[in-house]
């Protein structure tokens, strides 16, 4: 693959006290692809996602967008650069209505002096647009003015996904967007991801659901103990390969050949992590 990655990271590190959440992680996302990121609980997937979306500032490492080095100081920087994220805990304000949540942090003001001088919000336009976004994604709610806390878990997740899909212009990142969804809703989200790909928008999908991953992904990034340990193809590799890689039972050599690990450390995550994190 000689193409330039849309989003690329090298050697990312993030420590929380003694815990190393990201331990020299690399990352590549190519134009128009759906990249699945898989890994055990606590492998550091969400931390990696947060580093890529400006929600955390890594201690070390580089990120580049379209080949240009970027340094996000906050989520707003990444958003402005066109990276839109569905966080694992959704990042919605429960007391506010759906329309307000879709535009949270990027409210539109009225045109003319009222917007410029009085800073009046263009509530009407935001509501109309919010309704359109939900309609496009086939998301049904009682009203766009319902507070988010009155929605079901699945509906909330749909709102968070809709927000990212509506505003993402370069990359859409989704951290377990189907975790709380039923079969039908999950299918909708997968269809939406496929539609984003058709639009040419690359998508990063963090998921524990292997059938989903194998259904939608073009490539699979396997994350383990804070770093990328392999990138595999859902066409050339099996689910067993992926599960073996993410638990550490299998290993991918530099030549891309997957081999068994003799003395695999499948438990004792903490012990392993400590030795890996030491300088």
């Amino acid at each position, binding site marked *: 693959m000689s193409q330039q990655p849309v989003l690329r990271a090298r050697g990312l590190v993030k420590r929380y006290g003694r815990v190393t959440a990201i331990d020299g992680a690399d990352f590549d996302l190519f134009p128009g692809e759906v990249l699945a990121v898989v890994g055990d609980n606590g492998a550091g997937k969400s931390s990696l996602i947060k580093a890529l979306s400006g*929600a955390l500032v890594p201690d070390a490492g580089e990120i580049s967008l379209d080949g240009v080095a970027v340094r996000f100081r*906050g*989520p*707003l920087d990444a*958003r402005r650069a066109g990276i839109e*994220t569905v*966080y694992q*805990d*959704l*990042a*919605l*304000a*429960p*007391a*506010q209505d759906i329309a*307000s949540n879709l535009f*949270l*942090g*990027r*409210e539109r*003001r009225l045109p003319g002096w009222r917007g410029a001088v*009085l*800073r*009046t*919000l263009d*509530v009407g336009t935001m509501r109309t647009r919010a309704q359109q976004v939900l309609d496009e994604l086939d998301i049904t709610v*009682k*009203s766009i*003015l*319902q*507070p988010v*806390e*009155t929605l079901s878990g699945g509906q909330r997740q749909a709102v968070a996904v809709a927000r990212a899909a509506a505003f993402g212009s370069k990359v859409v990142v989704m951290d377990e967007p189907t975790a709380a969804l039923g079969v039908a809703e999950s299918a909708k989200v997968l269809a939406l991801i496929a539609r984003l790909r058709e639009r040419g928008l690359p998508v990063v999908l963090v998921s524990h659901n292997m059938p989903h991953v194998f259904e939608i992904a073009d490539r699979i990034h396997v994350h383990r103990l804070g770093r990328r340990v392999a990138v595999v193809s859902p066409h050339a590799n099996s689910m067993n390969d992926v599960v073996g890689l993410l638990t550490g039972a299998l290993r991918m050599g530099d030549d891309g050949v997957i081999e068994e690990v003799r003395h695999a450390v499948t438990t004792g995550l903490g012990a392993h992590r400590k030795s890996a994190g030491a300088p």
Partner: protein
Amino acid sequence: MGAAKLLGDVMYANRTRADLGEFVLRTPAVGPAIALAVAVVVFALTTNTFLELDNLSLVVEQSLVVGTLALGQTLIILTAGIDLANAANMVLATLLMAKLVVGGTPGWLALLAGLAVTTAVGAITGGLVTRIKLPPFIVTLGLLTILAAASRIYTGQSVAVSDPLLSWLGTRRYLFGGIEVTNGMTVAVVMYLVLWYALSRTGWGRHVYAVGNEPEAARLSGIKVRRTVLSVYLIAGLVYGIAAWQALGRVPNADPNAYQTGNLDSITAVVLGGTSLFGGRGSVLGTLVGALIVSVLRSGLTQAGIDDLYQNVATGVLVIAAVALDRLSRGRQA
């Protein structure tokens, strides 16, 4: 049109009768407004004097200082904070303004100095809360002690004010021949309207609610959480400065021992107005109603011949009921 639009904002399509209770719970000022109306009707029926225009004016006038303190308090509580030092901050400003004028400073300069001091205290509070991440309760508890002591160190006894500007808010006018209105009332109404507008119709307002409701979600949505919270403490500080001006309008005498329960009274008004102490829910209009409820209750019970102490009991019961209602309405959604 405005009222219809307001209603439209809070009503969903296909509202059924079961949703009516939800409407009351979800619209912060509706419950308190009903309570206020009930109180007014009860006192109008049970006493002869309550509904007299002079008495009604007095009721409003008596709620001005606490009502203004409560306005600033509302902003802070919306961010899930609390301000125990607001009345102490205000009292210090009244003393400063009074002493400056007595010492020959022009009234307008003394007023500006007072506003500057309360705003500076707001900046200090906001700085400690946002930079060092201290809980607002602790910060303002400390400031309460410091400011109250500072006031007494500054002047041992009360200072009389005789400056037209400093007592201007107490100036009365008569509308339609009989309705007594002070400048302080006008100023309070304007302040409430401005902040109502800012909170409900600007991006800043939405950020204030989001920060109080779910700070991490606000941060991830790109809201500058610290800057928003700091702005709230600054604006509240300025509002307390106006409260100091209101206080001198009511009684042209600055007293270091005045308004010792002003902080708690302002919290009472906020809570009665339906704003949640957990942050992120409520409105300044509710607070306005809350401040009026306290004042109406005091006046009505006095005229019904009920002792001060029982009035306190009644207010306390109302506060607990209001918080319980808030808790219950939230509990159903969790």
